């Protein structure tokens, strides 16, 4: 039997709930019903609502205010809501209605924590006397490093159980999660409210933290997983994924923990890009503002032309199922911009310092030989020549294309170039492509990314045998003379530092343990002897010359203290 609601404001409330996706009489919106019955000749509806949401008002006071204006027909309306509406009801809200129609006594609190009124002047409510109230703003937490349990104390319930606290940066419509903590450390269940009464409207949209989502191509599409215990969005927020290739949209609702629904799969494949947007239901409801783009690892990124096999990524950049975490893109920049120099070389996020240190040394000592190492073919591919075991009679030609693994925001994740653009259209390519060819030759980026010898690489690039010297205190003059002589003869050199067991000697020196450097020559200044070095990172150096470009001069006595080995070619 349908409801026959007499009071216009109660009817309006019912209409609003009936048209919503999940009709509910909550602890928050029951205030509208209390105001609807509390108004009358003695008090306007607005005045009633103001009184009902006064900070610090108790449930009993709210009940008395409503009861004072309750008419017979309104009592009937409330009875119908209880019996016929089918609306979900928070226990506290339901008890208000039951108490007003005389079916149950009013309960002062529900569970250990009840929030009263709006949040215009703070968060007010009732708890057990002496309990501490903890809160976290779930609307802002996803943008920070907070877990759901990283609460802050906003107040303590007084002897009568009342509390009034403040949460910094709380704004209209924010989702606030609260609980109580007793003296023995025990905590109550969580209570989540939506802040009201602070501003005229909710103007802060929910956020979505894209770094907390991982996309992976599967047989069924693209799986989306939440990779941390920290929330990625506001509970209840609508998160939209749009496949940029197909235009297909998928909307999901953030869970009560600010996560995505378990098992979420999107229509798409490896290499696809998804534009992600979010709405809290009040802002950005048309999802016009995009929070960012996520790429599905793998795929070819729209590569055209000859597409040769690429070396697999380092194991640190592989998913458990063997797919790469990063995407390949074709780079089309120049092979060389002017003559190759050490300053062109930048080590990527891979443990192969020995390789860029060696290549930068070759670029410094013999740029012409370096240019002979790599050639562009007529079909747009490249051929890189190495020499097995440094034997000139055993050349190994590796043919590659110019596809490189890139970070999500662009630029290569492994070796790159300095001194110019890092875009796929503009970056100088000789160093990253020789590195790629070396990875292809040795099996993968993992095969070259867990340590190696700079001397061996120089040998394999130039087809000459290698030699080395251990560096030790007392060998300053001998090493100075050797480096000076070999530099004059165009011999590439590199040096390695001690291992990680001696890492403490390096901190604050500007030189790093377990690391390889290009040796570029020697110099004397004011009678003191120095060796000229370059860090393959293209930054971080001994001393402070104001450039931080990786080039630096080191006194010979510091060289013998901090370095372990010198690599040369014979």
């Amino acid at each position, binding site marked *: 039997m349908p409801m026959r609601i007499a009071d216009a404001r109660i009817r309006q409330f019912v209409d609003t709930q009936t048209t919503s996706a999940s009709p509910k009489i909550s602890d928050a919106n029951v205030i509208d019903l209390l105001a609807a019955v509390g108004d009358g000749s003695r008090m306007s509806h607005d005045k009633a609502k103001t009184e009902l949401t006064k900070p610090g008002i108790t449930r009993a006071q709210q009940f008395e205010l409503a009861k004072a204006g309750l008419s017979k027909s309104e009592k009937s309306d409330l009875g119908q809501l209880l019996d016929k509406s089918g609306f979900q009801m928070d226990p506290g809200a339901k008890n208000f209605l039951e108490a007003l129609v005389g079916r149950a006594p009013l309960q002062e609190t529900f569970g250990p924590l009840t929030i009263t009124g709006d949040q215009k002047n703070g968060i007010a409510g009732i708890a057990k006397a002496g309990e501490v109230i903890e809160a976290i703003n779930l609307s802002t937490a996803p943008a920070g*490093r907070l877990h759901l349990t990283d609460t802050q104390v906003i107040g303590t319930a007084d002897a009568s159980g009342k509390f009034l606290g403040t949460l910094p940066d709380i704004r209209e419509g924010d989702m606030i999660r609260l609980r109580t903590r007793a003296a023995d450390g025990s905590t109550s269940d969580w209570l989540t409210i939506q802040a009201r009464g602070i501003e005229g409207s909710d103007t802060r949209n929910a956020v979505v933290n894209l*770094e907390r989502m991982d996309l992976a191509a599967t047989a069924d599409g693209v799986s989306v997983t939440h990779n941390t215990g920290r929330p990625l969005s506001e509970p209840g927020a609508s998160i939209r994924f749009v496949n940029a290739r197909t235009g297909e949209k998928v909307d999901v609702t953030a869970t009560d923990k600010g996560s995505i629904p378990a098992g979420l799969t999107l229509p798409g494949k490896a290499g696809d890009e998804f534009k992600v947007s979010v709405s809290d239901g009040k802002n950005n409801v048309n999802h016009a503002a995009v929070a960012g783009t996520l790429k599905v690892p793998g795929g070819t990124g729209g590569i055209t032309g000859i597409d040769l096999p690429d070396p697999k990524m380092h194991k640190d950049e592989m998913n458990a199922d063997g797919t790469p975490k990063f995407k390949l893109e074709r780079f089309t920049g120049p092979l060389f911009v002017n003559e190759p120099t050490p300053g062109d070389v930048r*080590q*990527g*996020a*891979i*443990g*192969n*310092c*020995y390789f860029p*240190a060696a290549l930068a040394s070759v670029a410094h000592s013999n740029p012409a030989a370096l240019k002979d190492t790599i050639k562009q073919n007529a079909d747009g591919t490249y051929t890189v020549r190495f020499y097995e075991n440094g034997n000139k009679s055993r050349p190994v030609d590796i043919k590659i294309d110019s596809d490189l693994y890139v970070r999500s925001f662009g630029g290569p994740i492994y070796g790159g170039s300095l001194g110019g653009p890092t875009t796929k259209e503009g970056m100088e390519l000789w160093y990253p492509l020789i590195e790629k060819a070396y990875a292809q030759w040795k099996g993968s980026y993992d095969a070259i990314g*867990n*340590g*190696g*010898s*700079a*001397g061996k690489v120089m040998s394999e690039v130039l087809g000459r045998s290698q030699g*080395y010297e*251990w560096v030790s205190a007392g060998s300053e003059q001998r090493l100075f003379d050797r480096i000076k002589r070999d530099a004059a003869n165009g011999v590439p050199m590199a040096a*390695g*530092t*001690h*291992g*990680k*067991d001696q*890492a*403490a000697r*390096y*901190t*604050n020196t*500007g030189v*790093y*343990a*377990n*690391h*390889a450097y290009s040796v570029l020559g020697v110099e004397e200044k004011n009678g003191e002897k120095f060796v000229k070095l370059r860090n393959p*990172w293209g*930054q*971080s150096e001994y001393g402070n010359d104001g450039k*931080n470009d990786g080039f630096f001069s080191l006194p010979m006595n510091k060289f013998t203290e901090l370095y*372990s*080995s010198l*690599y040369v070619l014979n």
Partner: protein
Amino acid sequence: MAKPPEPIDEVMPGADGAVLAVVTRVVEQAPQKAYERTLETSLPTTAARQVVELKVTKVLFGGLSAGALVQVVKPEGDYALREGNQGPFLLGKNESAVEILGRYGPDTWTEAAVKQAAAQLGKR
């Protein structure tokens, strides 16, 4: 491994504070494995975990205050600390401890780089 420092933009979102500080003492030192001298570099070896006490000389952002003594974890990784080491320390809080962030601790980024990245994220 002698990888380059991480891009600060990738680490800063997870930072809870940054300070200029000096290591006043090493509180705990996990056993350090000795490695053979080798011609190879960038090997997957590590410097052992430490707990160190820092004296804060300047706060770049976060809840610490200048002059404070704070114990922090130097995780197993690419560098080690000893008394007197100093520089900008980026700090992150996990469930049980405050940890130094950045592959090379105080040698990972300059003070200016930390301040700039923090300002871009509105961290004060």
